[in-house]
């Protein structure tokens, strides 16, 4: 649309509102916050209050001791992401938010699986672990603990493969992400 101040014709019909739409995909938001007490409650409280559901959440330090990074994933089919980021920006301690495009960032999650693999099944389990480039970090008579890093999908795939052997328990960190190339996250 032209931005000249002349009266070239414009029909109101040509105006469209594009915001508030749901993207339908998973979004990874990385939020740079001031490392001050209560910041995480502010972020978490905002999500709860506005009815936004967080899928995963990870918090940790950055290279700057005054700043922390919160990485969270949420479902763009359920929430208008621009409303979420605009509300987050209103928090005074939030410095920067990036909604990382898929492909533009490297995403990783760490998971640990405790498996009740009997001695006869161990070889098979170890083979699966190897294919997924996991590590066996603990072994007892009845159980073994496997560490896996990767994307959500990879961990989900491993989960599917290993579950039939007898999953005792599992812990996941939630995804963290960093943008590719020179761009700052």
């Amino acid at each position: 649309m032209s931005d000249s101040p002349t009266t070239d014709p414009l029909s109101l019909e040509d105006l469209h509102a594009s915001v508030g739409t749901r993207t339908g995909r998973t979004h990874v938001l990385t939020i740079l916050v001031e490392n001050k007490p209560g910041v995480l409650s502010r972020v978490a409280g905002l999500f709860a209050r506005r009815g936004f559901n967080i899928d995963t959440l990870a918090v940790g330090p950055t290279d700057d001791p005054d700043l922390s990074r919160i990485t969270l994933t949420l479902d763009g089919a359920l929430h208008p992401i621009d409303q979420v980021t605009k509300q987050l920006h209103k928090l005074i301690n939030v410095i920067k938010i990036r909604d990382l495009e898929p492909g533009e960032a490297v995403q990783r999650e760490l998971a640990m699986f405790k498996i009740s693999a009997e001695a006869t099944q161990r070889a098979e389990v170890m083979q699966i672990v190897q294919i997924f480039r996991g590590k066996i970090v603990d072994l007892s008579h009845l159980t073994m603990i496997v560490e896996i890093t990767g994307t959500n999908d990879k961990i989900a795939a491993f989960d599917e493969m290993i579950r039939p052997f007898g999953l005792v328990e599992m812990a996941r960190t939630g995804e963290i992400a960093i943008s590719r190339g020179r761009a700052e996250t």
Partner: protein
Amino acid sequence: MRAVDALMECLKAEGVEVVFGLPGGANLPTYDAFYDAGIRHVLVRHEAGGGHAAEGYAKATGRVGVCFGTSGPGATNLVTPICDAMMDSVPVVFFTGQVRTDLLGTDGFQEADTMGMTLPMVKHSIMIQDPQDLPRAVHEAFHIASTGRPGPVLVDIPVDLSKADIEYIPGGEINLPGYQPTTEGNQRQIRLAAKALAHAKRPIIYAGGGVINAEASAELIALTRYGNFPITATLMGLGAYPADDPQWVGMLGMHGTRAANYGMDEADLIVAAGARFDDRITGKLDEFAPNAKFIHIDIDPAEISKNVPAHIPIVGDAKNVLSRLLGEYRALDPDASRLDDWWEKVNGWKDKYPLAYEDSEDSEIKPQFMIQALHEATGGNAIVTSDVGQHQMWTAQHYGFPEPRRWINSGGLGTMGFGLPAAIGAQIGCPDTPVIVVAGDGSIQMNSQEFATCVQEKLPIKVFIMNNGYLGMVRQWQELFWDHRYSQVDLQDHSPDWVKLAEAYGMQGVQLTKKESLIGDMKRIMDMDGPVLVDVRVTREENTYPMIPSGEPARNMVG
């Protein structure tokens, strides 16, 4: 010096002329500092009164209101005014005392998690952890409260830290890397908006409280007059445009005029300025303004497209944007006659549906007439505060506000008991302007302890209780939507004798019951010295009309 003495210096540096509050154990050091700091402190009788007084002061003057309370119950009493200030974007800084740092988290005496419980209702909050940070925190609090979209900021100070010795360096700088409100509207968007306006055949301006916060009334008037646009405003925006002007179509929303609500319903272009499409405005969202495109001007980006998708969003300060929008619009030199048909329609609604009511056949005072009489008696020039209920809506409809900052009420939260303490703040901020309260007989009892404050501070506030003997607005809903089952709304026989109550507080009390002498009586009261409590007996079961039933579209207005 002690941190609290530095706090006093910071308040002075911020230009604070008055604070409201009530002391307690956890802010004793602060009150010791007040003892000879030379800052006016108004002692309220309940912290909620202090918070609302600070709001009233801020709304009347545009300056930051300040309120102090102690820890625990002092802080919990402040929750309502904090939330009220958040909902109506009022710049207030709240200072609460907190238990000693070694007691934090141990359920110490009068400990409450003040930060935690107010987290969802503050623009920002700061807990002091190092007393050396106090001066910077104070300046940051004032900066955040008063810039961008204004709002409440809380500073929580553990009592041991408030006594600590610090090195105070005046003029400490603020450091807020995550806070940079956009004030300049985007030029391209403003041009596009001007062009859309120039092509609109049925435009309407929809102004909200943000216009008043931005001191943008003059710019709003200039644009509206130049373009010859019909204009309406929300409950919070009343006074931004003079109510006696022919382009004014009346208030918008649930109890607004038909002209305003039908105007939005049939508009092809709506210019929202400093307004947030609250449900009391939109009614049923899916059917709100079905034919319109929206230009949305707001300093808070999160408001844009929150409820109604904007076609031309403009983030910025209303004063900046409206003045530039006029410039761009003028450059297009649009043909004014394109609005002739539209005005014919709008004026048709205005003529056909004025805010009418049936007068009484005897001397009984109709509530609507009470407000019109107040307008007459004050020349329409008073600062008017109100409580919440029918009396509030009738005041909004019938007083006719000529300019901004004359109408002070609780819109977003709808807090009963707001009116009297807000008037205290307004009168202190504007000592030369007459201040009146239109109170509800129910609402006034939620903060009537502040009559003592009025008397102590010798404030000439005139409190007019619209006495219908009911929690009237709730009674109205029970009548209309709950089959006349009046459940717990009758106050008639159990309210105090208001004249005696006034006298007990050492102020004058008057009862008014006759419509014939009402205007004269009110004039006489306005000329009385000191605070006066006026018990105005009105029709008991009168309904506030017109009305959009909750959740219905505007065109289904009743009454």
